[in-house]
């Protein structure tokens, strides 16, 4: 009897083990699940206008389910700045007058909105031109949007960071090091990034002794080491630098203030290994691109990472053959599937209805599309788990975004046409995602690498010049060729050990510009022309959307 019982237990144990193994294999293996022929209708849209989608949901959750549920929602959607029922937002203020000065001051329209924020119990942290960054109580969000000068309330734009480097020798920099400067100048190079953890430790070794630091977001300074790794490469390229500016920021408003600071410091080169999505039309316009233009007008060379998004990008015209308002990424494919290996991912949707850019704001969109996120459940199929359904009523941006703390497994995104009278081109970026079901590498260049004034840099392997498959590609949304150059990646770094990505490539170009600037009398514009002219042409002959003009080469 005891033997039979033991046998049964063993059999049950094995069966349980097999079942668990099957579930584990099904949920972890990169084998994409199937999908239904047609998705069901989405839930009702109940978020207020003049607010971005997730912010609107947060306000709704707070109002209907209370602060605890709202805090849980914020945590799951990676709204990390939740604090005692308040949240950090950016308020876009209505001001139709064009900008004039290079270093922008506050718009007069800002003052009444600042007073309104404070009257509602909020605090203002920073402001730039027509944007106010502040902390407001979630329950007052809807009331704030009713102020006549408020165009749009959104979460702050958050950039994403995209270790002697072997690329230095590859591009021929050492041959310049001992050259007597021919009417050179004292060169000022800045690395503008999210954080500089460990920079002090590398002072005088991997970085110049004299580091001029400025934190526009002190929280992230000692958390994120990305800027330190980039600065290392700039210094590897130009060890003659006796000082370097390290400046950080965390939001788009802080970004503008940081750029104003660097213009005031009269820096010559900005190394910028940061990328943004949903912060502009991808045609060289928008608040971040405007910062680049302002800097370049002041004589600064702005070197920007093209992005690492070639394999996590999809774009194409809205298509709905079965008329159910769900966009088809391909015939019979209304869900764009992807795998999340890190349990954290973000989906960003935008479409080409920004309206004209007047130098400080877009007109706004009245074509309303929404973004839905699905999770694959091996027992129940696709489950709707999150959405961004901000209304587009004429003043809001044509964007939706969802960031989630979820689990390792298969997910999908869908785009639903809520209300629109014209077809649009949709664009999706999926960060933290792999094995995207449908990939469109073309047009994956990030902001501000899309700016005409920025020198956009793609990534090639330092050892053999092959293009890294993740390196973002052009063209821009207005048809221009990007990137402008490619540079080595996958190089050694004291910070990271091995540093991959266009983030690593960018400081090679910034360092090269600083080197030529230090040794010659050329202006940044002329040096850009020289570097583009000397680049080692790779890929299709002439400039192309993979390599630009080719791989950085300092010697002919």
């Amino acid at each position, binding site marked *: 009897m005891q033997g039979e019982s033991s046998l049964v237990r063993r059999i049950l144990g094995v069966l349980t083990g097999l079942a668990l193994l099957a579930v584990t294999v099904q949920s972890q293996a990169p084998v994409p699940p199937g999908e239904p022929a047609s998705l069901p209708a989405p839930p009702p849209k109940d978020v207020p206008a003049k607010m971005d989608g997730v912010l609107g949901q947060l306000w709704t959750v707070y109002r209907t389910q209370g602060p605890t549920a709202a805090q849980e929602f914020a945590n799951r959607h990676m709204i990390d700045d939740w604090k005692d029922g308040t949240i950090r937002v950016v308020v876009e203020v209505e001001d139709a007058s064009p900008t004039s000065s290079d270093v922008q001051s506050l718009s007069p329209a800002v003052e009444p909105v600042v007073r309104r924020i404070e009257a509602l119990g909020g605090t203002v942290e920073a402001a730039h031109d027509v944007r106010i960054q502040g902390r407001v109580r979630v329950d007052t969000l809807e009331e704030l949007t009713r102020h006549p000068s408020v165009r749009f309330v959104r979460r702050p734009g958050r950039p994403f960071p995209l270790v002697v480097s072997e690329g230095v020798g590859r591009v021929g920099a050492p*041959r310049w090091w001992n*050259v007597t400067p*021919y009417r050179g100048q004292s060169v000022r190079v800045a690395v503008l990034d999210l954080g500089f953890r460990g920079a002090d430790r590398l002072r005088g070794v991997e970085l110049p002794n004299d580091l001029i630091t400025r934190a526009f977001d002190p929280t992230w300074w000692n958390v994120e080491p990305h800027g330190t790794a980039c600065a290392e490469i700039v210094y590897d390229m130009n060890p003659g630098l006796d000082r370097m500016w390290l400046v950080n920021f965390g939001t788009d408003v802080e970004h503008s203030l940081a750029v104003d600071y660097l213009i005031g410091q009269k820096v010559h080169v900005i190394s910028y290994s940061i990328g943004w999505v949903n912060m502009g039309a991808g045609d060289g316009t928008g608040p971040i691109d405007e910062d680049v233009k302002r800097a370049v007008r002041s004589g600064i060379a702005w070197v920007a990472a093209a992005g690492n998004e070639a394999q996590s990008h999809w774009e194409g015209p809205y298509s709905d053959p079965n008329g159910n308002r769900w966009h088809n990424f391909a015939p019979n494919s209304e869900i764009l599937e992807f795998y999340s290996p890190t349990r954290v991912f973000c989906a960003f949707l935008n479409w080409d209805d920004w309206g004209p850019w007047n130098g400080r704001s877009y007109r706004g969109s009245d074509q309303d599309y929404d973004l839905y996120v699905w999770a694959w459940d091996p027992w129940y199929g696709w489950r709707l788990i999150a959405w961004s359904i901000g209304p587009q009523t004429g003043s809001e941006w044509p964007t939706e975004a969802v960031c989630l703390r979820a689990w390792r497994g298969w997910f999908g995104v869908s785009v639903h046409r809520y209300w629109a009278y014209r077809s649009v081109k949709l664009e999706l970026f999926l960060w933290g995602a792999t094995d995207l079901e449908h990939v469109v590498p073309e047009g994956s260049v990030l902001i501000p690498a899309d700016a005409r004034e920025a020198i956009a840099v793609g990534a090639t392997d330092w050892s053999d010049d092959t293009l890294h498959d993740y390196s973002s590609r052009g063209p821009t949304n207005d048809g221009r060729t990007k990137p402008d150059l490619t540079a080595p990646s996958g190089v050694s770094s004291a910070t990271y050990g091995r540093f991959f990505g266009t983030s690593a490539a960018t400081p090679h170009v910034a360092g090269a510009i600083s080197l030529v600037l230090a040794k010659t009398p050329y202006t940044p514009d002329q040096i850009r*022309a*020289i570097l583009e002219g000397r680049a080692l042409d790779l890929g299709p002959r002439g400039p192309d959307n993979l390599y630009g003009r080719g791989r950085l080469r300092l010697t002919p």
Partner: protein
Amino acid sequence: MKHMFGLPTRSTRRRGRSASRWFWRHWTLLAALTVLPALTAEAQPKTPMGRVTIGIGGLAGFPAGDDFGTGVGVNAWFAFRVTSALLLELNASWTTGTVESRPTRFSGGRYRFIPVQAGLRLGRSLGDRTFAYAAGGGAYTVHRITVDESLRATWESLGFEIREEVDHVLRPYVGLGGLYRVSRHFLLSLDARLVIGGGTPGRWTLRDRTTQTTASGSIPDVSTGGFTLRGGFAYTF
């Protein structure tokens, strides 16, 4: 109507600047015709020079200002005796020396100055072997600057071409000198000259050979004048 000096009076109908210019031109000519015969008419020892004299020699150049160092060169000249006291002269010389390297000026290397001078020598014989003179006229100088070879080679290897230049200029010169006849046809010559040449424009150029992108700038007020001491032989006939 005739002019008081008996020259034709085409200007009787002229007015203002034209008349003034005519007056000075003719007055200068008249002065020359009047004064020079007077000089030559003076009783002088027999001149040691024939109608035509050709000379060669060496020179030491001492440029004014800080842009160029002392140089050496060669010189050739030709003189045509109009009267026993007046000679027309034509000089050409070639001087080379070091360019001073200074941060906001030139970057070093060598200069070559090639002045061609045309003017007059006015003098008198001191005995039948010696002729002392004062000279003056205009010097058109070709300036060539060669950037330091190692610097040039370095930039060449990086794909750039460096050039530094000074404008060619016409400047006045004055000088003193003497000739000493050692045989019937051969003379020894010694002369010192000053070219008055400040404020000549100069420039530098850096050109990328790949893209032809060029950066350039000016080097203002290059002092191209200076003192030269010349000595040599001459042949006269």
